[in-house]
C-alpha cells in the first residue's frame, strides 16, 4: 500500500501511533502502545529503555518483520508503507546473533550479500577484508560453535554492515563486547555512518554509549512502551573519548538516568500485581 509522497518530510522513517499487543486473555501483553518516532535522513538516533519495554518489538515492526496492531502508520522515505514493503530495504541486526550453524564464519558474514545475489567469490573477498578490523582474522573458516560470544556478535555485525541500506536498525549490537572492542566498533560504525550518510536507529542499554553515539537519545517508558523523552545531544562531532567527562555530557546523562530509573522502577513495582 504505497501512498502519496510528502515532500515536506525529510525523515527516512516515521512511525505514528504504532502499538503491538501479544496474546490474549490472561496472557495479554501490550508491548508497545502508540509510539511516535521519526528518524531524519542521516540522523543517528539511540533508543534506551527498561528491559522488556518493547524496543525489539518496535524494531521488528520498523524492519517490516512484524505487523503492528491496526491503526498506526509507517512512512518510509516519505511514503506510507505496509510493514512488509520494508523487507530488504532496512539493514537490521537482531538482538540474538542468529548465525547459521552449518555455515563457516565467512559464509555467515556474506549471508545478506548472497541473498542480494552477489557472486560468492566477490562477497567473500569483501567480507574477508573486514575480518581483521573486527578481530576475527584467522577465524574465517571456523564454525559458529567454535567462537566466543563476543566473536559471534562481531560476525553478526559484519553481516549487517555488508548489507548496505540507508537505514540501519541495530539492536544492542555491542552488548557482548568488552569495553575496548566496543569502542573500536563504535568508531567503525560512526565512520560508516558519516562516510555513507546512513541513518541509524540504535538500541543500547549503556547510557554513555547512547549519548556518545546519538544525535538524539529517545527514552521509552516501561511496558507498555511509549516514548517518554526525546533528548537532542548537542555535542560537537567528532566526539573524543573524554567527552564523557564533559559537563554537557554529564548533564544529559543525569537527565536520562533519572528518566530511565523512573521507568525501570515501574517494571518492578508493577511486579506485585
Amino acid at each position, binding site marked *: 500500500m504505497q501512498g502519496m509522497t510528502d515532500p515536506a518530510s525529510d525523515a527516512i522513517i516515521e512511525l505514528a501511533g504504532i502499538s503491538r499487543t501479544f496474546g490474549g486473555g490472561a496472557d495479554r501483553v501490550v508491548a508497545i502502545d502508540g509510539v511516535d518516532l521519526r528518524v531524519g535522513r542521516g540522523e543517528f538516533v539511540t533508543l534506551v529503555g527498561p528491559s522488556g519495554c518493547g524496543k525489539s518489538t518496535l524494531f521488528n515492526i520498523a524492519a*517490516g518483520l512484524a505487523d503492528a496492531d491496526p491503526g498506526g502508520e509507517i512512512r518510509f522515505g516519505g511514503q506510507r508503507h505496509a510493514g512488509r514493503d520494508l*523487507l*530488504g530495504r532496512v539493514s537490521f541486526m537482531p538482538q540474538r546473533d542468529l548465525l547459521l550453524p*552449518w555455515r563457516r564464519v565467512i559464509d555467515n558474514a556474506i*549471508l545478506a550479500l548472497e*541473498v542480494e545475489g552477489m557472486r560468492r567469490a566477490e562477497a567473500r573477498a569483501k567480507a574477508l577484508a573486514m575480518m581483521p578490523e573486527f578481530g576475527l582474522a584467522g577465524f574465517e573458516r571456523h564454525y559458529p*560453535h567454535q567462537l566466543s560470544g563476543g566473536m559471534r556478535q562481531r560476525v553478526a555485525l559484519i553481516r549487517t554492515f555488508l548489507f548496505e541500506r540507508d537505514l540501519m536498525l541495530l539492536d544492542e549490537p555491542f552488548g557482548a563486547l568488552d569495553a575496548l572492542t566496543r569502542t573500536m566498533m563504535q568508531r567503525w560504525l560512526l565512520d560508516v555512518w558519516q562516510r555513507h550518510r546512513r541513518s541509524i536507529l540504535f538500541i543500547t542499554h549503556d547510557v554513555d554509549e547512547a549519548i556518545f553515539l546519538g544525535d538524539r537519545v529517545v527514552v521509552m517508558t516501561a511496558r507498555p512502551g511509549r516514548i517518554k523523552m526525546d533528548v537532542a545531544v548537542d555535542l560537537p562531532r567528532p566526539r573524543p573519548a573524554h567527552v564523557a567527562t564533559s559537563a554537557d555530557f554529564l548533564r544529559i546523562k543525569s537527565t536520562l538516568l533519572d528518566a530511565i530509573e523512573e521507568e525501570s522502577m515501574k517494571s518492578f513495582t508493577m511486579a506485585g500485581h
Partner: protein
Amino acid sequence: MNALSRIAYPIAGLLVIAFVWEASILVFRIPTFVLPSIPSIAVALWNDLPALLAGLRVTLYEAGSGYVLGGVAAIVLALVFVLMPLVERAAMPIVVAVNSVPVVAYAPVALVALGMGSASKIAMVALAAGFAVFVNAMNGLKAVDPAAVNLLRSFGAGPLRTIWTLRLPAALPAIASGLRVAIVRSIIIAIVAEMLGAYAGLGQIIYLATQQVDFLRVWAAIVLASAASMAIYGLFAWIDRRLVWWK
C-alpha cells in the same frame, strides 16, 4: 569411530546371528524346511547365482527408480507445502489419506493399471519411499528458528531463498534420516510387489520358489536381498554422516 570398527561391529553382530542360527538348528532340531543351515543356503546361493543376480538387478532397478522418483517428489512436495501454506492447508488431508493407504493395498490397483512389469513396482516403491521422506522433510523444514527466518526476510530474501539458504540446510539431517530409512524399505516394497505379480525380480523368484517348495532357493534369494540392502544402507549411512558436517 574409525572405519575398521565401523565394519568390525556389524560383522561381529552377523557372526553372533550365524552362531545363534546354527546353534538353534542343533538344539531345537529345527528341520531344514523350516530353517536351513547356513552352508546349505550358501551352496544354493552359489548354484543359483546367475538367476538370482538377474533377479536382483531387476529388483534394484525398480527399487532405485522408485526411490529416486518418490524421494524427489516427496522433497518437492514438502518444499511446495512450506512455500505455499495455503496449498498445504488445502492438500494436506488428501496427501495424508493417500499416504495412509498401505502401499500393499495399492498393489492390486497398480498391477491392473500399470501391468506386471516394472512400472507397477516403481510406482509402489515411489509411494512408500516418498512417504517416509515426506514426513521427515516436513518435520525438518518446519522446525526452523522463526527468528532466523525473519533475519533472512529482513535481507529481502523471498520464500525461495529462505528455503534454499535456511530451511533446506536446517532440514538436511531430518531428510537424510528419512532417506536412510526409505532406502531399505524401497527394496522390500519392490520385493513384496514382485511377489504379488511380476515377470522378474527377487520377489518373483521368492514367490515361485515358495509355491514350488524350494525353500533353499527362498532363503538364498532373501540372503542376497538382505546383503544388497545392507550394502546400500551402509553407503547411505556413510553419506549421511558427511551431510551433517557442522556438528
